[in-house]
Protein backbone atom coordinates (compact mmCIF):
# COMPACT_ATOMS: atom_id res chain seq x y z
CA UNK A 1 0.00 0.00 0.00
CA UNK A 2 3.03 2.24 0.29
CA UNK A 3 2.87 3.10 -3.39
CA UNK A 4 -0.72 4.29 -3.07
CA UNK A 5 0.21 6.64 -0.23
CA UNK A 6 3.18 8.00 -2.21
CA UNK A 7 0.97 8.47 -5.26
CA UNK A 8 -1.63 10.30 -3.19
CA UNK A 9 0.96 12.61 -1.62
CA UNK A 10 2.41 13.32 -5.06
CA UNK A 11 -1.03 14.06 -6.43
CA UNK A 12 -1.87 16.42 -3.58
CA UNK A 13 1.46 18.23 -3.95
CA UNK A 14 1.06 18.65 -7.72
CA UNK A 15 -2.57 19.75 -7.37
CA UNK A 16 -1.65 22.29 -4.68
CA UNK A 17 1.16 23.69 -6.83
CA UNK A 18 -1.21 23.88 -9.78
CA UNK A 19 -3.77 25.78 -7.74
CA UNK A 20 -1.10 28.18 -6.49
CA UNK A 21 0.05 28.77 -10.07
CA UNK A 22 -3.53 29.39 -11.16
CA UNK A 23 -4.00 31.91 -8.35
CA UNK A 24 -0.73 33.57 -9.38
CA UNK A 25 -2.03 33.86 -12.93
CA UNK A 26 -5.10 35.72 -11.77
CA UNK A 27 -3.45 37.87 -9.11
CA UNK A 28 -0.17 39.00 -10.75
CA UNK A 29 -0.07 42.62 -11.72
CA UNK A 30 2.47 42.04 -14.48
CA UNK A 31 1.18 40.41 -17.66
CA UNK A 32 4.37 38.46 -18.39
CA UNK A 33 4.45 37.15 -14.81
CA UNK A 34 0.83 36.07 -15.20
CA UNK A 35 1.76 34.21 -18.39
CA UNK A 36 4.67 32.56 -16.56
CA UNK A 37 2.37 31.38 -13.80
CA UNK A 38 0.10 30.01 -16.50
CA UNK A 39 3.07 28.05 -17.87
CA UNK A 40 3.59 26.62 -14.38
CA UNK A 41 -0.06 25.60 -14.25
CA UNK A 42 0.18 23.89 -17.65
CA UNK A 43 3.22 22.02 -16.40
CA UNK A 44 1.29 20.81 -13.34
CA UNK A 45 -1.46 19.51 -15.62
CA UNK A 46 1.22 17.66 -17.63
CA UNK A 47 2.47 16.13 -14.36
CA UNK A 48 -1.07 14.94 -13.59
CA UNK A 49 -1.20 13.29 -17.04
CA UNK A 50 2.02 11.46 -16.19
CA UNK A 51 0.46 10.25 -12.94
CA UNK A 52 -2.47 8.90 -15.00
CA UNK A 53 0.08 6.88 -17.04
CA UNK A 54 -0.63 9.00 -20.12
CA UNK A 55 2.83 10.31 -20.91
CA UNK A 56 1.88 10.91 -24.55
CA UNK A 57 -0.79 13.37 -23.43
CA UNK A 58 1.71 14.97 -21.05
CA UNK A 59 4.16 15.51 -23.89
CA UNK A 60 1.40 16.93 -26.10
CA UNK A 61 0.30 19.19 -23.25
CA UNK A 62 3.83 20.58 -22.90
CA UNK A 63 4.26 20.86 -26.67
CA UNK A 64 1.00 22.66 -27.38
CA UNK A 65 0.33 24.68 -24.25
CA UNK A 66 3.87 25.63 -23.20
CA UNK A 67 5.59 25.47 -26.58
CA UNK A 68 2.88 27.16 -28.61
CA UNK A 69 0.12 28.83 -26.59
CA UNK A 70 2.37 30.46 -24.00
CA UNK A 71 4.78 31.68 -26.69
CA UNK A 72 1.85 33.15 -28.64
CA UNK A 73 0.65 34.87 -25.47
CA UNK A 74 4.09 36.43 -25.03
CA UNK A 75 4.07 37.50 -28.67
CA UNK A 76 0.65 39.03 -28.14
CA UNK A 77 1.94 41.03 -25.16
CA UNK A 78 4.95 42.22 -27.16
CA UNK A 79 2.69 43.45 -29.97
CA UNK A 80 0.86 45.79 -27.61
CA UNK A 81 2.29 49.11 -26.51
CA UNK A 82 2.79 47.78 -23.00
CA UNK A 83 5.87 45.60 -23.59
CA UNK A 84 7.00 45.63 -19.95
CA UNK A 85 3.59 44.21 -19.07
CA UNK A 86 3.31 46.31 -15.90
CA UNK A 87 0.60 48.82 -16.76
CA UNK A 88 -2.49 48.75 -14.58
CA UNK A 89 -4.31 46.09 -16.53
CA UNK A 90 -6.94 45.14 -13.96
CA UNK A 91 -10.53 45.77 -14.90
CA UNK A 92 -11.85 49.14 -13.88
CA UNK A 93 -14.97 49.63 -11.72
CA UNK A 94 -18.01 49.33 -14.00
CA UNK A 95 -16.63 46.25 -15.78
CA UNK A 96 -15.97 44.29 -12.62
CA UNK A 97 -19.53 42.99 -12.08
CA UNK A 98 -20.12 41.74 -15.67
CA UNK A 99 -16.70 40.09 -15.56
CA UNK A 100 -17.59 38.31 -12.33
CA UNK A 101 -20.92 37.13 -13.76
CA UNK A 102 -19.24 35.81 -16.92
CA UNK A 103 -16.63 33.98 -14.85
CA UNK A 104 -19.27 32.35 -12.64
CA UNK A 105 -21.30 31.31 -15.69
CA UNK A 106 -18.23 29.64 -17.21
CA UNK A 107 -17.53 27.89 -13.92
CA UNK A 108 -21.11 26.62 -13.78
CA UNK A 109 -20.97 25.36 -17.35
CA UNK A 110 -17.68 23.54 -16.69
CA UNK A 111 -18.94 21.91 -13.47
CA UNK A 112 -22.10 20.78 -15.26
CA UNK A 113 -20.13 19.43 -18.21
CA UNK A 114 -17.55 17.55 -16.13
CA UNK A 115 -20.19 16.16 -13.79
CA UNK A 116 -22.25 14.78 -16.67
CA UNK A 117 -19.34 13.49 -18.74
CA UNK A 118 -19.85 9.98 -20.06
CA UNK A 119 -17.65 7.66 -18.04
CA UNK A 120 -16.63 4.45 -19.83
CA UNK A 121 -17.88 1.91 -17.31
CA UNK A 122 -21.05 3.74 -16.39
CA UNK A 123 -19.88 4.05 -12.79
CA UNK A 124 -20.51 7.19 -10.77
CA UNK A 125 -18.39 9.91 -12.34
CA UNK A 126 -15.28 11.27 -10.58
CA UNK A 127 -16.70 11.13 -7.08
CA UNK A 128 -16.09 7.44 -6.41
CA UNK A 129 -12.85 5.57 -5.95
CA UNK A 130 -11.63 2.75 -8.14
CA UNK A 131 -8.39 0.79 -8.24
CA UNK A 132 -6.45 0.80 -11.49
CA UNK A 133 -6.20 -2.63 -13.11
CA UNK A 134 -2.71 -4.07 -13.28
CA UNK A 135 -0.69 -3.68 -16.45
CA UNK A 136 0.31 -7.34 -16.19
CA UNK A 137 -2.22 -9.71 -17.73
CA UNK A 138 -4.36 -11.59 -15.20
CA UNK A 139 -7.23 -14.00 -15.41
CA UNK A 140 -10.72 -12.78 -14.73
CA UNK A 141 -9.93 -9.14 -15.38
CA UNK A 142 -12.66 -6.98 -16.93
CA UNK A 143 -12.63 -6.73 -20.72
CA UNK A 144 -11.62 -3.07 -20.77
CA UNK A 145 -8.41 -3.79 -18.86
CA UNK A 146 -6.83 -5.15 -22.04
CA UNK A 147 -7.93 -2.04 -23.92
CA UNK A 148 -6.43 0.15 -21.22
CA UNK A 149 -3.17 -1.79 -21.37
CA UNK A 150 -3.02 -1.21 -25.11
CA UNK A 151 -3.68 2.49 -24.62
CA UNK A 152 -0.94 2.81 -22.00
CA UNK A 153 1.60 0.96 -24.12
CA UNK A 154 0.98 2.83 -27.37
CA UNK A 155 -1.04 5.90 -26.60
CA UNK A 156 -0.15 7.80 -29.76
CA UNK A 157 -1.80 5.16 -31.92
CA UNK A 158 -4.89 4.81 -29.73
CA UNK A 159 -5.45 8.57 -29.54
CA UNK A 160 -5.10 8.78 -33.34
CA UNK A 161 -7.60 5.99 -33.87
CA UNK A 162 -10.13 7.58 -31.51
CA UNK A 163 -9.72 10.91 -33.31
CA UNK A 164 -10.55 9.33 -36.66
CA UNK A 165 -13.43 7.14 -35.44
CA UNK A 166 -15.29 8.05 -32.27
CA UNK A 167 -14.34 11.74 -32.09
CA UNK A 168 -14.05 12.36 -35.84
CA UNK A 169 -16.82 14.97 -35.73
CA UNK A 170 -15.33 16.97 -32.86
CA UNK A 171 -11.86 16.70 -34.40
CA UNK A 172 -13.01 18.00 -37.78
CA UNK A 173 -15.04 20.78 -36.17
CA UNK A 174 -12.04 21.94 -34.16
CA UNK A 175 -9.98 21.88 -37.33
CA UNK A 176 -12.60 23.93 -39.16
CA UNK A 177 -12.73 26.44 -36.33
CA UNK A 178 -8.96 26.83 -36.33
CA UNK A 179 -8.89 27.24 -40.11
CA UNK A 180 -11.57 29.90 -39.89
CA UNK A 181 -9.56 31.69 -37.19
CA UNK A 182 -6.45 31.49 -39.37
CA UNK A 183 -8.23 32.92 -42.40
CA UNK A 184 -9.75 35.63 -40.22
CA UNK A 185 -6.34 36.55 -38.83
CA UNK A 186 -4.87 36.77 -42.32
CA UNK A 187 -7.80 38.92 -43.46
CA UNK A 188 -7.29 41.25 -40.50
CA UNK A 189 -3.56 41.53 -40.91
CA UNK A 190 -3.60 41.81 -44.70
CA UNK A 191 -2.93 45.31 -45.93
CA UNK A 192 -5.22 46.76 -48.52
CA UNK A 193 -3.19 46.12 -51.69
CA UNK A 194 -5.61 48.00 -53.94
CA UNK A 195 -5.19 51.21 -52.00
CA UNK A 196 -1.42 50.90 -52.17
CA UNK A 197 -1.45 50.20 -55.91
CA UNK A 198 -3.45 53.35 -56.69
CA UNK A 199 -0.75 55.56 -55.23
CA UNK A 200 1.60 56.95 -57.86
CA UNK A 201 4.51 54.52 -58.19
CA UNK A 202 7.76 55.98 -56.92
CA UNK A 203 9.67 55.24 -60.09
CA UNK A 204 10.87 58.84 -60.23
CA UNK A 205 12.87 58.23 -57.10
CA UNK A 206 14.96 55.60 -58.86
CA UNK A 207 17.92 56.63 -60.99
CA UNK A 208 16.91 56.65 -64.62
CA UNK A 209 19.39 54.02 -65.72
CA UNK A 210 18.41 51.46 -63.05
CA UNK A 211 17.69 48.20 -64.79
CA UNK A 212 14.22 46.72 -64.90
CA UNK A 213 14.00 44.08 -62.18
CA UNK A 214 14.71 40.70 -63.72
CA UNK A 215 11.55 38.72 -64.34
CA UNK A 216 8.98 41.46 -63.69
CA UNK A 217 8.58 42.28 -67.34
CA UNK A 218 8.23 38.66 -68.38
CA UNK A 219 5.47 37.81 -65.95
Amino acid sequence: MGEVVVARILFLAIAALGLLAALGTVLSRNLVHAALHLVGFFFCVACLFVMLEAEFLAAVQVLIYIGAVAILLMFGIMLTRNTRGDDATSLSGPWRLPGLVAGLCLFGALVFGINNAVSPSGASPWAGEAARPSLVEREGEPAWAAERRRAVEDMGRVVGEEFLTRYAMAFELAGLLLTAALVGAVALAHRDEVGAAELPPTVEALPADSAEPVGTAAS
Partner: protein
Amino acid sequence: MDVGSALYGTPLFAQSHRVDLTVSTCVIWGLWLIVGFAGLFPGIVAYMVWLERKVAARFQDRIGPNRVGPFGLLQSVADGLKLLVKENIVPRSADQVVHLLAPVLVLVSAFLTLAVVPFAVGLVPIDPPSGLVYLIAVSSISPLGIFLAGWSSHNKYSLLGAMRAVAQLVSYEIPQVLSTIPVVLWAGSLSLVSIFDHQVAYGWNALNPPGFLAFLTFLIASVAEVNRTPFDLPEAESEIVAGYHTEYSGMRFGLFFLAEYLGVFSVSCVATVLFLGGGTPLPFSAFPVNLLDGSVGSYLLVDGILLAVFSLKVLLFVFAMFWVRATLPRMRIDRLMNFAWKYLVPLCILNIVFAAIWYEVVVRPGALTARNWAWGMIAAGLPVVLGVQLVFRANRKLAAARAVDADWPTVGTIAEASR
Protein backbone atom coordinates in the same frame (compact mmCIF):
# COMPACT_ATOMS: atom_id res chain seq x y z
CA MET B 1 15.62 -3.51 -26.52
CA ASP B 2 14.11 -6.37 -28.41
CA VAL B 3 15.51 -6.50 -31.91
CA GLY B 4 13.96 -9.90 -32.63
CA SER B 5 10.41 -8.66 -32.46
CA ALA B 6 11.22 -5.78 -34.78
CA LEU B 7 12.93 -8.09 -37.24
CA TYR B 8 10.27 -10.75 -37.39
CA GLY B 9 7.11 -9.01 -36.25
CA THR B 10 5.00 -6.88 -38.51
CA PRO B 11 5.88 -3.17 -38.53
CA LEU B 12 2.52 -2.40 -36.93
CA PHE B 13 3.35 -4.37 -33.81
CA ALA B 14 4.28 -2.24 -30.82
CA GLN B 15 6.77 -3.65 -28.36
CA SER B 16 6.57 -3.20 -24.62
CA HIS B 17 8.16 -0.18 -23.01
CA ARG B 18 7.39 -1.11 -19.42
CA VAL B 19 9.98 -0.56 -16.73
CA ASP B 20 9.99 -2.37 -13.40
CA LEU B 21 10.84 0.07 -10.66
CA THR B 22 13.37 -2.19 -8.94
CA VAL B 23 16.55 -1.22 -7.15
CA SER B 24 18.69 -1.94 -10.22
CA THR B 25 16.59 0.41 -12.39
CA CYS B 26 16.99 3.15 -9.81
CA VAL B 27 20.75 2.55 -9.71
CA ILE B 28 20.94 2.72 -13.52
CA TRP B 29 18.94 5.94 -13.61
CA GLY B 30 21.13 7.40 -10.88
CA LEU B 31 24.24 6.47 -12.86
CA TRP B 32 22.79 8.14 -15.97
CA LEU B 33 22.11 11.29 -13.98
CA ILE B 34 25.51 11.48 -12.28
CA VAL B 35 27.88 10.06 -14.91
CA GLY B 36 26.00 11.08 -18.04
CA PHE B 37 24.10 14.25 -17.41
CA ALA B 38 26.31 15.81 -14.74
CA GLY B 39 29.69 14.56 -15.94
CA LEU B 40 30.00 13.25 -19.46
CA PHE B 41 27.73 15.56 -21.47
CA PRO B 42 29.12 18.84 -20.07
CA GLY B 43 32.60 17.39 -20.66
CA ILE B 44 31.71 16.67 -24.28
CA VAL B 45 30.44 20.23 -24.60
CA ALA B 46 33.69 21.63 -23.17
CA TYR B 47 35.75 19.76 -25.74
CA MET B 48 33.34 20.69 -28.54
CA VAL B 49 34.18 24.31 -27.80
CA TRP B 50 37.91 23.47 -27.99
CA LEU B 51 37.31 21.58 -31.25
CA GLU B 52 35.34 24.44 -32.75
CA ARG B 53 38.13 26.89 -31.96
CA LYS B 54 40.71 24.56 -33.50
CA VAL B 55 38.59 23.88 -36.61
CA ALA B 56 37.71 27.54 -37.11
CA ALA B 57 41.39 28.40 -36.71
CA ARG B 58 42.38 25.91 -39.41
CA PHE B 59 39.77 27.39 -41.74
CA GLN B 60 41.23 30.85 -41.17
CA ASP B 61 44.86 29.73 -41.46
CA ARG B 62 45.59 30.22 -37.77
CA ILE B 63 46.75 27.80 -35.08
CA GLY B 64 44.03 28.16 -32.47
CA PRO B 65 44.40 27.57 -28.73
CA ASN B 66 47.83 26.02 -28.06
CA ARG B 67 49.11 27.54 -24.81
CA VAL B 68 47.26 25.71 -22.03
CA GLY B 69 48.38 22.09 -22.00
CA PRO B 70 49.34 19.98 -25.03
CA PHE B 71 47.48 21.19 -28.17
CA GLY B 72 45.62 23.61 -25.89
CA LEU B 73 43.64 20.69 -24.49
CA LEU B 74 43.32 22.28 -21.05
CA GLN B 75 41.89 25.46 -22.56
CA SER B 76 38.30 24.31 -21.91
CA VAL B 77 39.11 23.69 -18.23
CA ALA B 78 40.58 27.16 -17.96
CA ASP B 79 37.53 28.66 -19.71
CA GLY B 80 35.17 26.82 -17.39
CA LEU B 81 37.03 28.01 -14.30
CA LYS B 82 37.03 31.55 -15.66
CA LEU B 83 33.26 31.50 -16.18
CA LEU B 84 32.69 30.08 -12.70
CA VAL B 85 34.69 32.70 -10.83
CA LYS B 86 33.65 35.67 -12.94
CA GLU B 87 31.47 38.29 -11.33
CA ASN B 88 27.79 37.94 -12.08
CA ILE B 89 26.31 41.32 -12.98
CA VAL B 90 22.55 41.76 -13.07
CA PRO B 91 21.19 45.11 -14.26
CA ARG B 92 19.29 46.97 -11.56
CA SER B 93 16.22 47.43 -13.74
CA ALA B 94 16.10 43.75 -14.70
CA ASP B 95 13.38 41.44 -13.48
CA GLN B 96 15.52 39.56 -10.95
CA VAL B 97 13.63 36.25 -10.70
CA VAL B 98 12.90 35.89 -14.41
CA HIS B 99 16.48 36.89 -15.22
CA LEU B 100 17.67 33.86 -13.24
CA LEU B 101 14.94 31.54 -14.50
CA ALA B 102 15.58 32.11 -18.21
CA PRO B 103 19.03 30.43 -18.63
CA VAL B 104 17.89 27.58 -16.38
CA LEU B 105 14.89 26.90 -18.66
CA VAL B 106 17.09 26.90 -21.77
CA LEU B 107 19.63 24.55 -20.17
CA VAL B 108 16.97 22.17 -18.81
CA SER B 109 15.41 21.96 -22.24
CA ALA B 110 18.78 21.10 -23.81
CA PHE B 111 19.50 18.42 -21.19
CA LEU B 112 16.05 16.81 -21.33
CA THR B 113 16.30 16.14 -25.07
CA LEU B 114 19.22 13.79 -24.45
CA ALA B 115 17.14 11.57 -22.16
CA VAL B 116 15.53 9.50 -24.94
CA VAL B 117 18.51 9.09 -27.29
CA PRO B 118 19.49 5.41 -27.72
CA PHE B 119 23.30 5.52 -27.89
CA ALA B 120 23.63 1.74 -28.31
CA VAL B 121 21.65 -1.43 -27.59
CA GLY B 122 20.30 -1.05 -24.05
CA LEU B 123 22.20 2.21 -23.57
CA VAL B 124 19.25 4.56 -23.44
CA PRO B 125 18.26 6.54 -20.33
CA ILE B 126 14.50 6.10 -20.81
CA ASP B 127 12.46 4.64 -23.64
CA PRO B 128 8.88 5.95 -23.49
CA PRO B 129 6.51 4.71 -26.22
CA SER B 130 6.09 8.29 -27.44
CA GLY B 131 9.74 9.30 -27.24
CA LEU B 132 9.75 11.51 -30.31
CA VAL B 133 6.81 13.59 -29.09
CA TYR B 134 8.61 13.94 -25.77
CA LEU B 135 11.73 15.10 -27.61
CA ILE B 136 9.83 17.75 -29.57
CA ALA B 137 7.94 18.85 -26.46
CA VAL B 138 10.99 19.44 -24.30
CA SER B 139 12.89 21.16 -27.09
CA SER B 140 9.96 23.55 -27.51
CA ILE B 141 10.62 24.92 -24.00
CA SER B 142 13.84 26.66 -25.03
CA PRO B 143 12.19 29.50 -27.06
CA LEU B 144 10.32 30.39 -23.88
CA GLY B 145 13.59 30.64 -21.94
CA ILE B 146 15.21 32.73 -24.66
CA PHE B 147 12.22 35.04 -24.80
CA LEU B 148 12.23 35.50 -21.03
CA ALA B 149 15.98 36.23 -21.10
CA GLY B 150 15.47 39.02 -23.60
CA TRP B 151 12.41 40.41 -21.89
CA SER B 152 13.74 40.38 -18.34
CA SER B 153 16.99 42.18 -19.22
CA HIS B 154 15.17 45.49 -19.80
CA ASN B 155 17.41 46.32 -22.74
CA LYS B 156 16.23 47.04 -26.25
CA TYR B 157 18.89 44.92 -27.94
CA SER B 158 17.95 42.01 -25.72
CA LEU B 159 14.28 42.41 -26.57
CA LEU B 160 15.03 42.65 -30.29
CA GLY B 161 17.16 39.53 -30.11
CA ALA B 162 14.47 37.70 -28.17
CA MET B 163 11.78 38.60 -30.70
CA ARG B 164 14.00 37.47 -33.56
CA ALA B 165 14.83 34.27 -31.74
CA VAL B 166 11.26 33.35 -30.99
CA ALA B 167 10.08 34.11 -34.54
CA GLN B 168 12.92 32.01 -35.97
CA LEU B 169 12.61 29.11 -33.53
CA VAL B 170 8.83 28.85 -33.88
CA SER B 171 9.08 28.95 -37.69
CA TYR B 172 11.81 26.35 -38.00
CA GLU B 173 10.24 24.03 -35.45
CA ILE B 174 7.51 23.25 -37.98
CA PRO B 175 9.72 21.85 -40.78
CA GLN B 176 11.83 20.11 -38.14
CA VAL B 177 8.81 18.25 -36.79
CA LEU B 178 7.26 17.62 -40.21
CA SER B 179 10.48 16.07 -41.51
CA THR B 180 10.40 13.42 -38.78
CA ILE B 181 6.95 12.20 -39.84
CA PRO B 182 8.29 9.88 -42.62
CA VAL B 183 10.53 8.17 -40.06
CA VAL B 184 7.59 7.63 -37.70
CA LEU B 185 5.47 6.36 -40.58
CA TRP B 186 8.03 3.75 -41.60
CA ALA B 187 8.86 2.57 -38.09
CA GLY B 188 5.19 2.56 -37.03
CA SER B 189 6.19 3.88 -33.62
CA LEU B 190 7.19 7.07 -31.88
CA SER B 191 9.83 5.34 -29.76
CA LEU B 192 13.40 6.15 -30.81
CA VAL B 193 14.44 2.59 -29.95
CA SER B 194 11.83 1.19 -32.35
CA ILE B 195 13.03 3.62 -35.01
CA PHE B 196 16.59 2.31 -34.54
CA ASP B 197 15.32 -1.29 -34.79
CA HIS B 198 13.45 -0.44 -37.97
CA GLN B 199 16.63 0.87 -39.56
CA VAL B 200 18.51 -2.28 -38.56
CA ALA B 201 15.92 -4.24 -40.55
CA TYR B 202 15.29 -1.91 -43.50
CA GLY B 203 18.48 0.11 -43.97
CA TRP B 204 19.22 3.67 -42.93
CA ASN B 205 16.38 6.12 -43.37
CA ALA B 206 18.56 8.68 -45.13
CA LEU B 207 19.33 6.24 -47.94
CA ASN B 208 16.03 6.44 -49.82
CA PRO B 209 14.70 9.43 -51.74
CA PRO B 210 11.99 10.69 -49.34
CA GLY B 211 14.24 9.91 -46.40
CA PHE B 212 17.12 11.87 -47.92
CA LEU B 213 14.89 14.89 -48.49
CA ALA B 214 13.59 14.64 -44.92
CA PHE B 215 17.18 14.30 -43.67
CA LEU B 216 18.28 17.48 -45.45
CA THR B 217 15.26 19.45 -44.21
CA PHE B 218 15.81 18.15 -40.71
CA LEU B 219 19.48 19.18 -40.78
CA ILE B 220 18.74 22.72 -42.02
CA ALA B 221 15.89 23.22 -39.57
CA SER B 222 18.03 21.85 -36.73
CA VAL B 223 20.89 24.24 -37.45
CA ALA B 224 18.32 27.03 -37.27
CA GLU B 225 16.87 25.62 -34.05
CA VAL B 226 20.22 25.78 -32.26
CA ASN B 227 20.91 29.35 -33.50
CA ARG B 228 24.10 28.51 -35.37
CA THR B 229 25.46 30.44 -38.33
CA PRO B 230 24.01 31.09 -40.95
CA PHE B 231 20.91 31.31 -38.74
CA ASP B 232 22.45 33.20 -35.80
CA LEU B 233 20.31 36.33 -36.17
CA PRO B 234 19.11 36.24 -32.53
CA GLU B 235 22.67 36.93 -31.36
CA ALA B 236 24.02 38.81 -34.36
CA GLU B 237 27.01 40.71 -32.94
CA SER B 238 27.22 43.23 -35.75
CA GLU B 239 23.57 44.26 -35.43
CA ILE B 240 22.19 43.88 -31.92
CA VAL B 241 25.25 43.55 -29.62
CA ALA B 242 24.68 39.98 -28.43
CA GLY B 243 20.93 39.60 -28.73
CA TYR B 244 19.03 38.03 -25.88
CA HIS B 245 22.10 37.41 -23.69
CA THR B 246 23.51 40.94 -23.88
CA GLU B 247 22.88 41.53 -20.17
CA TYR B 248 24.20 38.18 -19.01
CA SER B 249 27.64 37.69 -17.53
CA GLY B 250 29.54 35.17 -15.45
CA MET B 251 28.08 31.71 -15.06
CA ARG B 252 24.61 32.75 -16.21
CA PHE B 253 26.12 33.53 -19.59
CA GLY B 254 28.00 30.23 -19.23
CA LEU B 255 24.66 28.43 -18.92
CA PHE B 256 23.50 29.87 -22.26
CA PHE B 257 26.82 28.86 -23.78
CA LEU B 258 26.52 25.34 -22.38
CA ALA B 259 22.92 25.07 -23.61
CA GLU B 260 23.86 26.12 -27.14
CA TYR B 261 26.62 23.53 -27.52
CA LEU B 262 24.53 20.91 -25.76
CA GLY B 263 21.83 21.68 -28.33
CA VAL B 264 24.32 21.11 -31.16
CA PHE B 265 25.33 17.80 -29.60
CA SER B 266 21.78 16.57 -28.99
CA VAL B 267 20.60 17.60 -32.45
CA SER B 268 23.50 15.64 -33.95
CA CYS B 269 22.58 12.62 -31.82
CA VAL B 270 18.92 12.81 -32.84
CA ALA B 271 19.81 13.16 -36.53
CA THR B 272 22.08 10.12 -36.23
CA VAL B 273 19.38 8.03 -34.58
CA LEU B 274 16.53 9.11 -36.87
CA PHE B 275 18.25 9.06 -40.23
CA LEU B 276 21.69 7.43 -40.10
CA GLY B 277 20.81 4.20 -38.32
CA GLY B 278 22.27 5.02 -34.91
CA GLY B 279 25.54 3.20 -34.39
CA THR B 280 25.31 0.63 -37.19
CA PRO B 281 28.42 0.88 -39.39
CA LEU B 282 26.88 -0.66 -42.56
CA PRO B 283 23.65 0.72 -44.04
CA PHE B 284 21.83 -2.47 -45.09
CA SER B 285 23.10 -5.01 -42.61
CA ALA B 286 22.28 -5.78 -39.01
CA PHE B 287 26.01 -6.33 -38.53
CA PRO B 288 26.88 -5.72 -34.90
CA VAL B 289 23.36 -6.26 -33.59
CA ASN B 290 23.11 -9.82 -34.96
CA LEU B 291 26.18 -10.83 -32.91
CA LEU B 292 24.10 -10.56 -29.73
CA ASP B 293 23.66 -14.01 -28.21
CA GLY B 294 22.74 -13.13 -24.64
CA SER B 295 26.22 -13.38 -23.15
CA VAL B 296 27.84 -10.41 -21.44
CA GLY B 297 30.88 -10.57 -23.74
CA SER B 298 28.86 -10.26 -26.95
CA TYR B 299 26.84 -7.46 -25.38
CA LEU B 300 29.98 -5.49 -24.52
CA LEU B 301 31.47 -6.08 -27.98
CA VAL B 302 28.31 -5.00 -29.82
CA ASP B 303 27.83 -1.93 -27.66
CA GLY B 304 31.49 -0.99 -28.09
CA ILE B 305 31.18 -1.09 -31.89
CA LEU B 306 27.84 0.74 -31.86
CA LEU B 307 29.07 3.44 -29.51
CA ALA B 308 32.27 4.04 -31.50
CA VAL B 309 30.41 4.37 -34.81
CA PHE B 310 27.73 6.51 -33.16
CA SER B 311 30.35 8.94 -31.86
CA LEU B 312 31.99 9.09 -35.27
CA LYS B 313 28.69 10.00 -36.93
CA VAL B 314 27.91 12.62 -34.28
CA LEU B 315 31.41 14.05 -34.74
CA LEU B 316 30.74 14.25 -38.48
CA PHE B 317 27.58 16.30 -37.90
CA VAL B 318 29.31 18.54 -35.38
CA PHE B 319 32.18 19.11 -37.80
CA ALA B 320 29.71 19.90 -40.60
CA MET B 321 28.13 22.57 -38.39
CA PHE B 322 31.56 24.11 -37.65
CA TRP B 323 32.36 23.98 -41.35
CA VAL B 324 29.12 25.79 -42.25
CA ARG B 325 29.86 28.36 -39.57
CA ALA B 326 33.33 29.02 -40.94
CA THR B 327 32.04 29.28 -44.50
CA LEU B 328 28.65 30.95 -44.75
CA PRO B 329 27.66 34.51 -43.81
CA ARG B 330 24.54 35.32 -41.80
CA MET B 331 21.17 35.25 -43.55
CA ARG B 332 18.90 38.26 -43.84
CA ILE B 333 15.78 38.02 -41.68
CA ASP B 334 13.26 38.11 -44.54
CA ARG B 335 15.11 35.42 -46.47
CA LEU B 336 15.24 33.36 -43.30
CA MET B 337 11.45 33.49 -42.90
CA ASN B 338 10.83 32.99 -46.62
CA PHE B 339 13.05 29.94 -46.62
CA ALA B 340 11.16 28.31 -43.75
CA TRP B 341 7.63 29.05 -44.90
CA LYS B 342 7.92 28.98 -48.69
CA TYR B 343 10.49 26.24 -49.23
CA LEU B 344 10.85 23.94 -46.24
CA VAL B 345 7.24 23.64 -45.10
CA PRO B 346 5.75 22.84 -48.56
CA LEU B 347 8.59 20.41 -49.25
CA CYS B 348 7.97 18.62 -45.95
CA ILE B 349 4.24 18.33 -46.58
CA LEU B 350 4.82 16.93 -50.08
CA ASN B 351 7.45 14.61 -48.67
CA ILE B 352 4.92 12.95 -46.35
CA VAL B 353 3.03 11.73 -49.45
CA PHE B 354 6.28 10.47 -51.03
CA ALA B 355 7.11 8.69 -47.78
CA ALA B 356 3.72 6.97 -47.97
CA ILE B 357 4.62 5.69 -51.45
CA TRP B 358 7.90 4.31 -50.12
CA TYR B 359 6.03 2.71 -47.21
CA GLU B 360 3.56 0.98 -49.54
CA VAL B 361 6.24 -0.31 -51.91
CA VAL B 362 9.10 -1.25 -49.59
CA VAL B 363 8.06 -1.43 -45.94
CA ARG B 364 4.54 -2.88 -46.18
CA PRO B 365 5.56 -6.21 -47.84
CA GLY B 366 7.28 -7.17 -44.57
CA ALA B 367 10.95 -7.64 -45.46
CA LEU B 368 13.49 -5.76 -47.48
CA THR B 369 14.07 -7.32 -50.91
CA ALA B 370 16.25 -5.97 -53.73
CA ARG B 371 13.30 -5.94 -56.14
CA ASN B 372 11.02 -3.92 -53.86
CA TRP B 373 13.88 -1.58 -53.07
CA ALA B 374 14.55 -0.88 -56.76
CA TRP B 375 10.84 -0.31 -57.39
CA GLY B 376 10.68 2.01 -54.41
CA MET B 377 13.67 4.01 -55.64
CA ILE B 378 11.85 4.61 -58.93
CA ALA B 379 8.32 5.10 -57.55
CA ALA B 380 9.37 7.46 -54.76
CA GLY B 381 12.49 8.95 -56.31
CA LEU B 382 10.82 10.54 -59.33
CA PRO B 383 8.11 12.31 -57.30
CA VAL B 384 10.77 13.61 -54.91
CA VAL B 385 12.80 15.14 -57.73
CA LEU B 386 9.66 16.57 -59.34
CA GLY B 387 8.40 17.91 -56.00
CA VAL B 388 11.66 19.74 -55.27
CA GLN B 389 11.61 21.17 -58.81
CA LEU B 390 7.99 22.26 -58.38
CA VAL B 391 8.56 24.06 -55.07
CA PHE B 392 11.66 25.90 -56.29
CA ARG B 393 10.08 26.85 -59.61
CA ALA B 394 6.86 28.10 -57.99
CA ASN B 395 8.89 30.20 -55.57
CA ARG B 396 10.95 31.76 -58.35
CA LYS B 397 7.75 32.68 -60.18
CA LEU B 398 6.24 34.12 -57.00
CA ALA B 399 9.33 36.19 -56.22
CA ALA B 400 9.49 37.45 -59.79
CA ALA B 401 5.80 38.35 -59.90
CA ARG B 402 6.02 40.26 -56.64
CA ALA B 403 4.78 43.83 -56.76
CA VAL B 404 7.61 46.35 -56.77
CA ASP B 405 5.84 48.31 -54.02
CA ALA B 406 5.80 45.40 -51.60
CA ASP B 407 6.46 46.73 -48.12
CA TRP B 408 8.06 43.49 -47.00
CA PRO B 409 11.34 42.97 -48.86
CA THR B 410 11.24 39.68 -50.70
CA VAL B 411 13.99 37.64 -52.25
CA GLY B 412 14.49 40.42 -54.50
CA THR B 413 16.09 42.59 -56.94
CA ILE B 414 18.71 45.25 -56.51
CA ALA B 415 16.19 47.97 -57.31
CA GLU B 416 14.00 46.85 -54.39
CA ALA B 417 16.81 46.54 -51.93
CA SER B 418 18.24 49.96 -52.71
CA ARG B 419 15.01 51.68 -51.85
